[in-house]
């Protein structure tokens, strides 16, 4: 047989025999135990505890998930073990939610290093939602109400519905990483608690080092989203000045929904002080008025009152940020884009610079629709 003949045969035969020996990476779905929710907590000694909720694929099992807790026993061992028990030893290939306890965020130094595994292993997801849990994580992972879906679906559903009302932020691992690394911004995470039921009504703010610094109410979170420009549908319920309410004793509250809200942020610099001009244009639809008023006649007053109220709330929120040295909106990003030279000098202490900045907020509420009744 000629040499080429042998070669030709080899070219066909060898690959096929070798290829049959494949299947190295095969992992059938039902055999993989992949966690859908990971929880990170610390015990009193400061060791890391990792919780994990894994779905079980068995039609006869009543409980559809099983939970794993890994922690260390003694402080001494803990110091050795806490590093051994890294997050990566769980299979996070399909991780949906990462729950971090508030305690960990408050006390554990550089907890964000535990996130490394998600970014280093190319197969891991980075769209898992990160949530802050206010309380001990064991409560959460023991929480299996019979009338609710499994924990990951519960958490996702809760987050989605809150997000649709813009009452909190949605932060994926990827976004968290970006916010942690961006010098002109500090991260914000949704925060929930277990109080008979799961309740997501706060938004946690982290400081430059990723430590827990403050939290926002749903209302404040809405304004944060408005400033971040990543939502444009809001529902506000705000008080109006007393003089608009003719009937004594009536609640001076009205509700409206706003869509197509536009926010403009302009930055300028005077010496070593940044100045921000924020302009919010908000066409609104009235949804509820709890006091008698002739909307048609007093339209201008009503608009002015609403504008003033929103403006007041926005200013309060911004000064809260400044006080706490937090910039979840990312004002620094604007500063970098417009005043790069100066920003570069101060970027490592941006939050201090931000605290000094001047803000000029203008809100323009326009009544677009007063509803179906007078």
């Amino acid at each position, binding site marked *: 047989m000629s040499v*080429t003949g042998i*070669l*030709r045969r*080899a*070219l066909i035969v060898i*690959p096929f025999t*070798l*290829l049959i*020996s*494949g299947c*190295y*990476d095969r992992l059938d779905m039902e055999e993989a135990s992949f966690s859908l929710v990971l929880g990170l907590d610390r015990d009193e000694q400061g060791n890391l505890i990792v919780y994990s909720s894994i779905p079980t694929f068995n039609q006869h099992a009543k409980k559809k998930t099983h939970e794993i807790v890994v922690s260390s026993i003694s402080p001494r061992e803990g110091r050795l073990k806490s590093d051994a028990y890294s997050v990566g030893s769980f299979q996070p290939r399909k991780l949906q939610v990462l729950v971090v306890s508030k305690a960990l965020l408050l006390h554990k130094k550089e907890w964000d290093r535990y996130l490394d595994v998600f*970014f280093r292993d*190319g*197969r891991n*997801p*980075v*769209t898992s939602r990160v949530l802050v849990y206010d309380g001990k994580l064991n409560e959460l992972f023991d929480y299996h109400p019979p009338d609710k879906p499994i924990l990951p679906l519960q958490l996702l559903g809760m987050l989605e519905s809150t997000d649709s009302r813009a009452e909190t932020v949605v932060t*994926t691992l*990827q*976004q968290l*990483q*970006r*916010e942690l*690394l*961006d*010098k*002109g*911004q500090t991260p914000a995470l949704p925060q929930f608690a277990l109080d008979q039921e799961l309740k997501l009504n706060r938004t946690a703010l982290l400081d430059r080092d990723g430590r827990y610094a403050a939290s926002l109410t749903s209302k404040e979170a809405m304004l944060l989203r408005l400033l971040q420009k*990543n939502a444009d549908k809001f529902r506000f319920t705000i008080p109006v000045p007393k003089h608009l309410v003719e009937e004594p004793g009536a609640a001076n509250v009205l509700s409206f929904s706003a869509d197509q809200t536009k926010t403009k942020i302009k930055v300028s610099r005077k010496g070593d002080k940044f100045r921000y001009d924020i302009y919010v244009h908000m066409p609104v639809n009235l949804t509820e008025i709890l006091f008698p008023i002739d909307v048609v006649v007093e339209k201008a007053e009503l608009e002015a009152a609403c504008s003033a109220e929103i403006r007041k709330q926005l200013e309060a929120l911004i000064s809260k940020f400044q006080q706490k040295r937090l910039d979840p909106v990312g004002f620094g*990003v*604007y500063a*970098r*884009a*417009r005043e*790069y030279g100066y920003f570069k000098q101060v970027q490592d202490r941006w939050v201090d610079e931000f605290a000094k900045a001047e803000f000029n907020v203008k809100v323009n509420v326009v009544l677009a629709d007063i509803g179906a009744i007078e």
Partner: protein
Amino acid sequence: MKKYALNDITLLQYIMINFGMAVSFGFIELPAMMATEAGTDGWIPILIGGFVTMFASLVVIRLMQRFPEGTFFDMLAHYLGKWAGKTAALAFALYFLLYAYDGLIYTIRLIKGRLLPETPAFLIALMLMLPTYTIARNGLRIVGRYAEFAVMISLWIPFVYLYTLENLHPLYLLPVFKEGWKPILSAVPGTFFYYLGFVSSVILYPFLKHKKHASAGLVIANGITVLSYLFITLVCYMFLSPDEAKLIHQPSIYVLKSIELSFIEQVEGLFIAFYAFIFSLSWIPPLYFTVFCTSWMMGKQEHRPHLRVIVILFAVSTYFYLPTYDELENISQLLGVSGIAVEYLFPGIMLVFLWIYVRLRKGRNWT
């Protein structure tokens, strides 16, 4: 005299071979590479590098126009004698071999890293060699058709990136010229590596059906390359915060990870698998050119025996040795340096040399 007429390729195939060879892994690597050198201004050097490349590729065409009916080696053999042609063929064979090897190893590394971490590299190499052999054995025409087809079915890629739109922050790009011109200019030579491949015209030119469009073809090919690079760098720089851009390897893939559709999540797995079509253009045409050179050197028409040897060698070599990430970097560096020499400098030198040589010869004959 039309020695290569039987295997002619269309202009589109010519464009796609050139585009595919250049763009392949540059699309994945370039954004991070430029971010470390020039920050968010990294898209400017790409533009400048693109223009330089256009000029360099026009030089190659000008060179080939001196001897339109043959390859560069035929030309050298014609002017300077058989051995000059053979030496050049050997040099180009080695160059294209290195090119193909680099592309192949990069693909294997990426697939191993992202899709099949536990599968031995040589099995991946073996799998990749199957289509390589099926396509390259049938000659240039089929390679051309394949290039055309591979690009065509990869047209979905830019559209997938549209899904990242909501996560883009155009503010990250501002201000342009953050650090002035210096980092931008110093990053330009780094882009050349990702534009390599146009020198294949020294072989392709005689096969081209409409030779008068050759320059236009190369400019178009280069233009599409520049556009796709610009597209992906801009997307990446708007997605990643400026300091993050330097940390993330392969940002083109990282960006895709943010996409969640109702029927599919973690789209990047699908992307990497199907991007193999484009990746394959970084080694299938060069491998063909390599065996073309070697069989030209041996004076043989049939290129398949050589192809078989090389395909088997590639597969077997990965069994014994797979370059680590650092070594791959070194190989790329070597390819980059030799690429600048072979593609950017050599054709120009040859053009001047031949011009002088012919002048001198003519002068002598005349007197």
